């Protein structure tokens, strides 16, 4: 500790513009860590019960990630190379809220995805579909004051994977949300409406609550389309909201 150190109690008492705790989520809000239909969970889930963590200042704070660090084209995946990527150009936009409906401003949204043929620009993706020299598949942006974000990209293709015989992933875009606190951190996937692969995909179906699965499906949004340019999907995201004031009870 240096002479700048201040007495710990005071730091905590001064937390004012952010929740001092986050609501505990219902058990079926997220997929189980042990989910046999998704084979890779077998050796990668803890078998011991999780230990209850009373949320402290470490969990209710979070980093200022992305501020002043993003490039102008970071949210346009169709303009990151010399030429245009092949595929169906789409705008994906939406708002980030907490579960109380409060918009979350200034939070980092990161996405990554396969190209129109369902191929990722990654050394480990070896299935025989073409790479697109004009598509990397990564984007990022900060939400504005209304919690709004927007990406321009191309619609990713579905692709086969090795989970079981003739396994296919529905088309999806990976989303990473920092939220405004460690407790709000979320990584998810956005799906497209009406995908015929839904019923066969153990990752999508690992969410046991049908309303939860519905939450992960974007909506076609005619009002967001850009005439003569791009189709549009809306994907609103809900991160856990504030809980009761923790330490007074």
């Amino acid at each position, binding site marked *: 500790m240096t002479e700048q150190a201040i007495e710990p109690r005071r730091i905590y008492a001064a*937390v004012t513009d952010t929740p001092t705790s*986050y609501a505990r989520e219902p058990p079926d809000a997220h997929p189980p860590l042990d989910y046999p239909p998704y084979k890779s969970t077998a*050796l*990668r*889930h803890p078998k011991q019960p999780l230990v209850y*963590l009373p949320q402290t200042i470490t*969990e209710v704070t979070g980093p200022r990630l992305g501020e002043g660090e993003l490039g102008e084209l970071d949210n346009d995946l169709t303009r990151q190379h010399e030429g245009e990527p092949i595929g169906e150009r789409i705008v994906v936009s939406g708002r980030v809220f907490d*579960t109380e409906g409060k918009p979350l401003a200034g939070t980092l949204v990161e996405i990554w995805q396969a190209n129109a043929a369902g191929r990722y620009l990654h050394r480990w993706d070896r299935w025989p579909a073409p790479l697109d020299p004009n598509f990397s598949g990564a984007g990022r942006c900060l939400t504005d004051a209304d919690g709004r974000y927007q990406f321009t990209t191309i619609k990713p293709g579905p692709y086969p994977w090795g989970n079981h015989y003739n396994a296919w992933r529905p088309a999806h875009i*990976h989303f990473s949300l920092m939220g405004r606190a460690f407790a709000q951190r979320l990584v998810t*996937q956005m799906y497209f409406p009406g995908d015929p692969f839904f019923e066969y995909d153990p990752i999508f179906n690992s969410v046991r609550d049908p309303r939860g699965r519905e939450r992960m499906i974007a909506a076609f949004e005619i009002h967001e389309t850009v005439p003569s340019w791009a189709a549009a999907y809306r994907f609103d995201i809900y991160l856990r909201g504030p809980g009761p004031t923790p330490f007074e009870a």
Partner: protein
Amino acid sequence: MIFSPTPSQTVGPYFAIGLPWELGPLAVTRDAPAAIRIAGTVYDGAGEPVPDHLLEFWQADPDGRFADMHDHGGPSQLRGFRGFARYGVEDGDGSFEIVTVKPGPVPGPGDTTQAPHIDVSVFARGMLHRCVTRIYFADETEANAADPVLARVPAERRATLLAEPVAGGYRFDIHLQGPDETVFFAV
């Protein structure tokens, strides 16, 4: 709760397209005074390294202050301190290494003080939701003994949360499963 939360999904094997960045593993600038390395390996239930893990770290500075996005009256004064690190690579071998400073104690519930610790989120293919653990420091015996969170952990499992001092920093391995399974928390 008015709205149901958006459910978690796995990061899958290809997150390296989008999530890592060059300075990601630096919670503090490399030349920061008292910079240390924390390194280790993530193992699965068969004892094999997990090559496609993504780890995130969040912590206070040595004075117990956070580089937080909110105004809590006492943000970190340490120049170049981000307090956050992200480690994930395209061609992983299960190991990780971050550069940071050792955090100071911070307040806990009630009148308690928490021992120096770092919150860690573990993501990987095969993990449908993140797992959260904490790094404590094996050389903080006294502070650890008074820590309100460690007190909730069965005594025989506490050692899984202790980073061991090594030259230049600390070593901390993570076992997702198995006899040495790391303690994970419900946040």
